[in-house]
Every structure is written in C-alpha cells, then in structure tokens.
C-alpha cells in the first residue's frame, strides 16, 4: 500500500483510481472523501494541484470517470474483514480475565495487610489491567 500522504504517482500513475487507490464504485462522494484526505496530507502545493485536477477529472465528467473505472482493475480480492478487536476499557482480553477476578484483586492476605476485612473495599486498591494504556489495542 502506498503512503497516504503523497499523490500516489509512480507505478500506476496512468489511472487516477489506481494512482490514488480509490474504489470507483464509491462514486463521486467516495472519490471526494479519499482525495480530500490526500490533499490534506499532501506535502506541497504542486501535489495538491495534481490531486485537485484528478478530483475534477473524476467527479465533473461522468464519461471520463467511467472510462477510468473500466481501465482500473476491479476489486475482487478477498475481503480483509475487521481487524482484531481493540481492548475495551470495560472488558479485558480473555487472557487477563482471571487476573481480574475479584478474589485476586481482593485477596484476603492483601486486605489483611491493609487492615481491612473482605467487603470493606468498595473500589480495588489497584487500577484494573484493562485500564493500562499499554494493553489497549
């Protein structure tokens, strides 16, 4: 995958859908969204101008858009699907589930060290593992 910041010129420069990695089926709205991102990330004005020209070409002229679309490979690759789910703040990955067992967090010996009885601690004394920013996807 090409870096999103450039104008994508290079191996596939001849076709704007391939140059900017836009799926033609997304229509003018999708093209606009992707190319806007490209313009925002463009390193210089010349690159921005090129992307604007491509945007005009693809959105203002339906026939040219179609011609370019027919000359771009259709998307028939295996759908990638969703990435692995990110760890949620209120639900730790299963591997840590037992570590968060209340029995462990409120282990009697720890409570005794703190001079407490089971049931005295309304909140755990330590932050939950799932709150650790390093463990959040």
């Amino acid at each position, binding site marked *: *995958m090409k870096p999103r910041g450039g104008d994508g010129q*290079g*191996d*596939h420069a001849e*076709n704007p859908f*391939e140059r900017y*990695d836009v799926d*033609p*089926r997304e*229509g003018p709205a999708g093209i606009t969204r992707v190319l806007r991102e490209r313009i925002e990330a463009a390193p210089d004005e010349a690159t921005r101008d090129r992307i604007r020209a491509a945007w005009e070409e693809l959105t203002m002229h*339906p*026939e040219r*858009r*179609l*011609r370019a*679309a*027919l*000359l*771009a*490979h*259709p*998307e*028939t*690759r*295996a*759908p*990638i*699907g*969703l*990435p*692995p789910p990110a760890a949620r703040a209120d639900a730790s990955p299963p591997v840590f589930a037992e570590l968060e067992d209340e029995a462990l967090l409120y282990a009697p010996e720890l409570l005794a060290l703190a001079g407490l009885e089971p049931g005295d601690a309304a909140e755990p004394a330590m932050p939950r593992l799932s709150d650790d920013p390093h463990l959040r996807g």
Partner: protein
Amino acid sequence: MPLRTEDEALLLRLEDEEILRGLFGFDTAPLGLPPPHPRAAGMIRLLSRMPGGGEARDRALALDFRALASMMRPETLTGLAPELLHHLALYFGRLGALLTERSPNVAVGAIVRANAAWLALEEEGKYLSNIATTIAGADATRVAAHFAMDRIDELGGVAEAASTTLDQAGQVALRALASVPTSCLSAGVSQAIERRAVARARARRGSAVDLAVERVRRAVLTMASDGAPANARATELEKVIHVWAWSDKDELVEQVVAEELQPIGWELYHAANWDGLRRALAPFRAVIDSLAARIERNPDKIAYAAGCAEILMFTSETESTIEKQIAAGERTLRVCPTHRNGRLVMASYLCDKATRSLDVPWVTGEVARTAEALVARAEQLYPASKSLPEARERLEAAKARLGRAFWGTG
C-alpha cells in the same frame, strides 16, 4: 492458535498480491517492469477458484508460475467470469503496452489477448453496463457498450500517429489490429460482433497505412508534375517499401506500388531504357511478387490484376534470357490472363524461342514439333503478333526439310 476468518482472508490477499508480483515478473522477466496495481491480485483469487486453480496457486506460492500463466491464456474465453475477463483485459493490455518497445512479438500477443477479453465482455453484455450504471448513471451505458470497439479505435489512433515515424508502437498496433479476427475467435463472440470488430479494425488499419503511403505517393506525383525523370521518381517511391515492412506487408502498399510504378515503367519502356527500367523495378520485386501471389491465390482480386501484370510484363522485358522472359511472361498471364500487353509480349517470346530452336543446321522432329506448339500458342495468345510471320515461315521451312513421313513419326 487458529487464525480468525478475517486474518485468514488477509493472509490470502497478501499471498495473492505476492503471487501477482511474481507472475508479472515471470511474464516480463528479466526486464524488471513495474507490476500492476495490487487490486489486480483479485485475478489470482478468481483463477484459484477455477478447476485446477488451487493447485496452480500453490505452485505459484512455490515460485512456479507456469500453471497459473497457462490458466490466464486459455484457447477460448467463453464461460469465464466477467470479473476475470476484466482483469485479463487490463493485465494483458498493460503487458502489451510495457513490452511494445522491448519485445514487440510478445506485446502483440498480449494485446490480442486483451482485445479478446474486451470482446468477450462485450459479448457478455451486462457486466460493463452494470459498472457504467453504478459509476456514471444509466446514460453512460453506451460508453460501456462500445468499450471493446473503442480499444480497437485506440490501436488505430496509435498506428495513425506513427504513420510518419513508422515506429514500433505503430507497428505493434497494426499487427494487433490485423489479429482482431483471432481475438474474436478466442473471445467466442457472435458473428455480428465479429463482423463489426473486424470491419472496424480493417478500416483503422487501412487508414493508418493509407496515411503513411499517401505522403510518398503525393511526393512522387509532385515530382512527376515537376518533370522529374522516371528513375528519380522510382527512388522516391522506394520509401513505401519501409511502409510495407512497417505494415507487415500490407496489400494496400503493394497496390500503390503497382499503380505508381506503371507510368514510371512506361516512360522507361518507351525510351527503351532497359537499364533504367531494370534499376527502377529491382527494389520492388518482393512487393510485386507478394501482390502477384495474392492474386494467384484469389482471382477475385481482379481490380489489381491488370496493374500487377503490367509491372510483371515490364520485369519480363528486363530478364536476361528467353527462358526467364517466358517464365515471367507466364506469371504475367497467370495474374491477368486477358492482359493485352502481357499476351503480346508472351507471343513474341514464344515465337522467338521457336525461331531460335529452328535456327540450327539440323532440326529433329521433336524440336520441330515443340516449335510448332510454341507458334500455335503464340497465335492463340496474340494472332496479330508481328513475330508470327517469321516464326511460321521458319517452321514451314523446317517441315519441308524434314519431309512429311519423318515429320509425322518423329
């Protein structure tokens, strides 16, 4: 740990993209050309779902791309999924464009395959129209409907643009246009589409060759109107031989040579400038031979037979021996049996040969009978030939010397 379905899909996609790069390298090695967009890897996925495709994909993962490359080049495209046809059209189109300068023969083959895939999509009818509707609305379906023909026009444009420089891109385009019937056959299109595609390709090819030839023809005509000598005009006309080579020996070039060489030939012939005539004709021998062979194979090409026969007749007049003259004369008459001048000179050659054969101290019966047959054919070809009276006279004298009995038995 087992992979999630999504991870499995990602792995397959990455493998397909890797295979695509390897496959393109296999098709273009050792040139190191840039591979298609990774989206083209969808073609690998579609191929892998076909019979034998899984095994071909596995072999490609082991860097053996032959099976996959072979699957991409079936004898017929009939029955292939339209998405795969679309991929193949673009893949081979790109291959053709990138290889035009470096490997023109492979480039032509690739473009012929690309055209076949576009034509197969036109035959299928729905796929391109659906894309058109999705992307540009219902009004755009006519663009999709003509897309295969547009590709033919595009090749015609490349060829026309090269009609001055006669460059390789133009030559590759011309050859691909000439192979549109092969593309149609591979695509399995209907007769209606085939007729349309072949007619379009022929017209675009003819237009490009005509443009290239017309420049030379105009220059020769201008020279003629300026009073340039025949041999100088013949030298200018030689430029069309480059067009002939560029166009893979296009018949139109041969027709133009036959047409434009006639006034040059007549001028030198009337001046009895045999050396000049020989020099003027020599560079065009292969071109005229080719046109003559076409007419011999297909007598329906009668429109060009007389012009071609005229040049062959001039050629026969420049031959060094009577046997070569007769051989050239025979060809003249095979190309155009009714050619007046061809019959006239042939009658003269036959009389000449008969007379020479009789011009010996002792004539055998066999020689006399051969001479009689030659004279008889000369009479049949051109009864008013000025050579006939002398030939008949010599023949009668030979007969008289031989005596009737001997003459009858040999």
